Structure formats: C-alpha cells, structure tokens
C-alpha cells in the first residue's frame, strides 16, 4: 500500500488565506490543487512536504474570461472545464487538441491548469501549449503580483519561478485575428505521458506568417526553438517552411532514451509532429481545417 509520508493539512478559504498560510508555514509547505501530480509523487516518496495547503476551495480562481485582446484563465480551472470551454476551443484550438490527450477523463476532472504548469513536468502538455501561444502567468505573493512569460516562468524540469509563499493565480493568453494553433502528440496508450509532442501557433498576414510559436514536450528541458520560430517569421505558409521549421525544432530538442523510445525515434517524432502541428495551425488560421 502506497501512502504519503505524514504531513499537516490546511485548507485555504481564499487566495489571501492561502498566501498567509504559505507565509506562516514556510518552505516546507506545498500547495495542492487537483493533486494528480503531487499525490502520486508523495506516494512514491519523491515528495514529502511537511504541510499541504489545499486550495480546492478557491473558486475565485476557477474562471475563463474573455477580455477582448486576451483570454484569462484562473489557476484552479480544471482540465475538464478547459476541454468543455467553447471560447477556448474557438480561439485556441491547440488547447482542446491537448486536453483531449491529457491523461484521461477522471484525471481531467480533478487536475488544474495551475497545477499542471507549476508541476513543470518535462512531459507535461499545457506548458508547451502556453509557450506556443505566447501566454503569460500571474504569480501573486503577499507583496503583490508579478506577470511572467513562459520562458521566465518555466525554469526547467519541476522548477518554476514561483517562490516560497507565492501562488500562481492566472494564465493570460493573447488572442489574435487570423491566428490558428494545433497540438500533436504521440503516446503509447490512452492517458500515458507523451513519447513526444509539439504545439504550434501561427498568426497570419494573408498567406505570410506574421508570428509563430512552437513548443515541444517530452523531448528535453528546453521546450522552444528560437531558430524554428525565426525561420517562419515573414515566410510564406508552405509545406517547405513547415518542414524546415520541424527540422530545426528537432535539431534543437534534447530527448533522452527511455522505455518510450530511443533518441533517434523521438527526434524523428519531434520533427514530424512540429511539421504537422504547423500545417494544421495554418489551416485553422486560414479557416481551412487541414
């Protein structure tokens, strides 16, 4: 029987209460949202916090709001709500692509976007989605808020810029006209971690790519490829451009061999999935589903 090591449990009633608890309890406290990453780690004793601060009662962080130029998603919004949001599906189809293949419906009933991002698992999907979309996150502490882009936020595997005593409260996703996005993932079976995955977002100006975002998952610590993104800027949307960006992204990723595949296979997937994601993103941007 796997059970977590002993800890003290506190349930926060508001964001302010959560921040006060985190300040009082110090660095040995961890925030628990849906718990579907943290609890398995605690059962395996990969994590053993002395205090858990449960933020599941913070309904104030469960929202998806359209601010015109951007969509704001509260940190406690669960995967299921992301998948069921018509607004997100229309503005950012990459989110629905990814949510359909994140774990399984039971896990999606509990897991949250804030928890997923803060876990910063190198195989986690929403970090790549948010990076591709150029999203930023809002981190709140007792002294105020900080707004960080995904590069500033995501420090590496299991490490983010959220400091002790701080809480991720919101994700902000810029919305553009003539934009499209897509997520492609290969997994061995339903609900498994990705062998490799790629997300792409494109903003079009006629047939020309005005701006691109590419982010990969499960193929190394660095999820973006600046060279791939740069190769697309100003280029004509074409199979050649997508293939070249895929090639660059695959070169820039750093997969490791494990039970899901060897390095060459994962690199091949990174290339192919990036190309496919770009093709679909462009199709969607031009309102023609590829």
């Amino acid at each position: 029987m796997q059970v977590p090591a002993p800890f003290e449990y506190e349930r926060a009633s508001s964001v302010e209460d959560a921040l006060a608890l985190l300040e009082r309890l110090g660095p040995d406290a961890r925030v628990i949202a849906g718990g579907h990453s943290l609890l398995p780690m605690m059962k395996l004793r990969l994590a053993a916090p002395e205090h858990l601060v449960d933020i599941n009662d913070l309904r104030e962080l469960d929202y998806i709001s359209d601010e015109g130029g951007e969509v704001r998603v509260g940190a406690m919004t669960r995967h299921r709500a992301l998948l069921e949001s018509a607004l997100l599906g229309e503005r950012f189809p990459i989110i629905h692509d990814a949510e359909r293949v994140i774990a399984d419906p039971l896990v999606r009933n509990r897991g949250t976007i804030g928890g997923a991002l803060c876990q910063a698992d190198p195989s986690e999907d929403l970090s790549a989605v948010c990076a591709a979309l150029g999203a930023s996150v809002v981190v709140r502490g007792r002294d105020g808020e900080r707004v960080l882009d995904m590069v500033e936020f995501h420090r590496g595997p299991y490490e983010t810029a959220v400091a002790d005593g701080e809480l991720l409260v919101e994700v902000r996703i810029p919305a553009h006209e003539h934009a499209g996005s897509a997520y492609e993932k290969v997994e061995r079976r339903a609900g498994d971690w990705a062998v490799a995955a790629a997300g792409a977002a494109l903003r079009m100006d006629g047939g020309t790519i005005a701006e691109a975002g590419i982010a990969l998952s499960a193929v190394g610590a660095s999820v973006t490829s600046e060279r791939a993104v740069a190769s697309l800027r100003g280029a004509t949307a074409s199979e050649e451009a997508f293939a070249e960006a895929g090639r660059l992204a695959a070169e820039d990723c750093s997969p490791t061999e494990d039970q899901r595949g060897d390095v060459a296979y994962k690199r091949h997937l990174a290339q192919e999935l990036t190309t496919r994601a770009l093709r679909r993103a462009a199709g969607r941007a031009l309102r023609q589903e590829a």
Partner: protein
Amino acid sequence: MQVTMTVNGDEVTREIEPRLLLVHFLRDHLGLTGTHWGCDTSNCGTCTVQMDGEPVKSCTVLAAMAGGHEIRTVEDLERDGVLDPVQQGFMEEHGLQCGFCTPGMLMTARALLDENPDPSDDEIRTAISGQICRCTGYTTIVRSVRWAAEHPAEVTP
C-alpha cells in the same frame, strides 16, 4: 484531524490522519469495500467513485480533500433490491467478467449516463479510457453501458 463528508447520502465524521487516501477511508473506516483498490498509481481506475457527481480516482484524492463533498460509491447504486440499469446491463451483456474493475466502471457509466443518456460507443470508450480491464474485454463493457442507456430506470433517485 476530523473530516466530515456525505457518503451515499449519509453524513459521516471520522478522526483521520491527513495522509489517509479517500479509497482507504471508504474501505477501512466505513467498511465500503465495494470500491476496489488496484494499482495504487492513479492508472487503473478501479478505485473510481463519484465526487459531487463526477467520477474520480479515489486513490488520488485525500480523504481530507473530500471533506464537505458528496461521495457516491457502488454500494449506492442498488435501491430496495432493484439494480441500477448499469448494474443490470453488466449482467445482461457480461460486462462483469472477473469483476475487479466493475465497481469503478459502474460509477463512471452512471456518471456518463446521468450527463449524456444516449452516448455513442466512442463516447463510452472515451469515458472509461482511464480505467483498465485486464480481462481485455472492453467490448462487453461498452455493450453493457449501451444496454443501460437503452433501458433507463423509470425513476431516477
């Protein structure tokens, strides 16, 4: 610490350790052993119960986190000797097989049908995709849920 939640319509209060998982709370503290406990790693889904009407894996929820919420387990499906249509369906279409994953499958099926009374086979397969049947017999499970969809109870409690 003390935890209070509603289980199968009854409010229960128990003194627990914060690290107690919901599955063990149900089985060991309340004696509701219909909820099975399988892989321990949040993969197999055999421990599935409903929390506020949604299926969740009870090995990945702390009992403390369930405080104040409504939990429904497989023991609550049959009423006054009358089986829930999903239970009857699993009998009619041999969805039971070895029976180990059955309680979790039943709770997911009930939640699915409550929300979507006429799911497609694909929707049924998606709904149970987080639950493993090692009899390799998903075909009969899907048929069982379909049977239940085609034979809804006249009175839903």
